[in-house]
């Protein structure tokens, strides 16, 4: 049974990854999960300087999922390179670094710093965080802006570039094509969907930021649909995510056209979810006699 997949020339032992922002840099989950079993660890977004993030409350529970408005709190690229990368290097897994910024130059600065770090296999560019005012999602909701920042980043990146797309758009296929044409090596989707919760007894917003990003099983059908539409629109590989809780969910994304999958909010529900997902994929492959996992990618039919 072969669970290997290759994205933009990078080979992963299996398609199970972690969704940026839900797994830190792996440290917190290393006591629950054998990181060596994961296809890749996708880190929490890192910026050129430390970001304090949003005021609290930053998270709220909703039906079948959660809202978050962390605001990309991160220690900045210096500490990240000194502490997080050496930690992750100890494990036999691929490292994908999620990059965030407010201006194109912010992104480029981080991308260039990471270019000197051979342990970093790929870069994931976060142009879809709904919780920060400038930058981020502004680039992710307009095809021209997306293609502009993608070109600029590709001009400076030494590693293959994954553009992480926002689901808060009218036409995900159009955004996917824009990123592909601008040179993106791969796409990841979906980021969270902008949502809101109100405490009806206090008559206040549940989040200090008013709105937050919705994640969890509640959004899975939207994510599967968008992965399917994006996969039919572009030739570059797609990393699918959105409410994945087990192997069956992961296989659904693969069948829809994803080459790999990321586990996000469900890490908070069971810290062992990434391994549960991997075990479930392998069980499915055995049960259905699937020799190569690549045979599942985009294999859904009418």
């Amino acid at each position, binding site marked *: 049974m072969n669970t290997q997949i290759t994205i933009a020339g990078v080979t992963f032992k299996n398609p199970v990854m972690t969704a940026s922002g839900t797994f830190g840099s792996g440290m917190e989950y290393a006591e629950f999960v054998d990181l060596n079993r994961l296809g890749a660890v996708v880190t929490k977004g890192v910026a050129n300087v430390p970001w304090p993030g949003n005021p609290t409350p930053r998270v709220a529970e909703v039906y*079948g999922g959660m809202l978050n408005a*962390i605001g990309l709190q991160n*220690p900045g690229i210096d500490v990240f390179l000194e502490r997080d990368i050496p930690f992750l290097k100890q494990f036999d897994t691929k490292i994908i670094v999620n990059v965030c910024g407010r201006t194109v130059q912010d992104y480029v600065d981080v991308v260039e710093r990471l270019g000197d770090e051979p342990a970093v296999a790929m870069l994931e560019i976060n142009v879809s965080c709904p919780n920060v005012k400038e930058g981020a999602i502004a680039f992710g909701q307009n095809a021209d802006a997306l293609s502009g920042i993608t070109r600029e980043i590709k001009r400076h990146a030494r590693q293959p570039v994954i553009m992480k797309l926002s689901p808060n758009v009218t036409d995900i296929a159009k955004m996917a094509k824009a990123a592909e044409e601008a040179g993106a090596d791969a796409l990841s989707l979906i980021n969270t969907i902008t949502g809101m919760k109100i405490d009806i007894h206090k008559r206040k917003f549940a989040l200090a930021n008013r709105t937050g990003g919705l994640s969890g099983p509640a959004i899975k059908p939207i994510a599967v649909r968008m992965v399917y539409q994006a996969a039919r629109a572009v030739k570059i590989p797609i990393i699918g995510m959105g409410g994945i809780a087990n192997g069956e969910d992961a296989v659904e994304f693969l069948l829809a056209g994803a080459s790999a999958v990321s586990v996000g909010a469900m890490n908070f529900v069971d810290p062992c979810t990434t391994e549960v997902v991997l075990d479930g994929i392998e069980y499915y492959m055995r049960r259905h006699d699937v020799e190569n996992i690549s045979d599942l990618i985009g294999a859904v039919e009418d």
Partner: protein
Amino acid sequence: MKRRVSAEVIINREIAPAIYDMWIQPVQKLPEINPGQFIGVFLKDKSLLLPRPLSICEVNADRTALRIVYRIAGAGTHEMSLRRPNDGLGYVTVLGPLGNGFPLEKGEGKRTLLIGGGIGIPPLLELAKRLKAEKQIVVGYQNCNTAGFLQRDLAQYGTVHVATEDGSVGTKGNVLDAVRQKRIEADLIYACGPMPMLRAVKAYAQEKGIPAYISLEERMACGVGACLGCVVKTNQVHHHTNVNNARICTDGPVFEADEVDI
């Protein structure tokens, strides 16, 4: 590897209006637990996915069972209140112990003051049990309806003073009114309760020039320090986050009052 474990519900009874006393027995022996640590309790209700962070009230001698005293605050704790031993709902899934807990060594041999407000009282029990020091324990309740829960338990380990907002029991007013009225002198404070109380405790400790260790609450998601959902502003740049933020779930929930900006 650590993981979530299933725990059998041994006792689950209402000890005050909407306040429940639950003893659970995890399938495997518990690791060493520090007073002030908490557990994440997962629910059967699939619309409520996140763990409920609940402070550990007490652990039995051989560490095979632990006690949590919780208030019904929403659908999740309501579901917990319906658990009955020996039926289809007779067990819970838990993660923990989580967080750091109260620093026992700081208080050893000193005159300590333990302050608890409302549903912040439970973690003081294991603290009082384990703390080798002179202990004055002040607990505050809303009114006579809730007044008294855990009071007898605490009395085994120190002198208990009660305050109620409506004056129905003990000192009329809040916990600090009781401290002042009883002229309690201490070298160090441990406290857990609502934020207004903790702010008052912090101010009181500064006024007296003594250290205070306070247990904080915030909306949590992962409970293990990964999501950065539950942070508190810190006066110094925090070593882990590299910003003026500390994670309540892992760097806390107990902080020295002077470290945090509350």
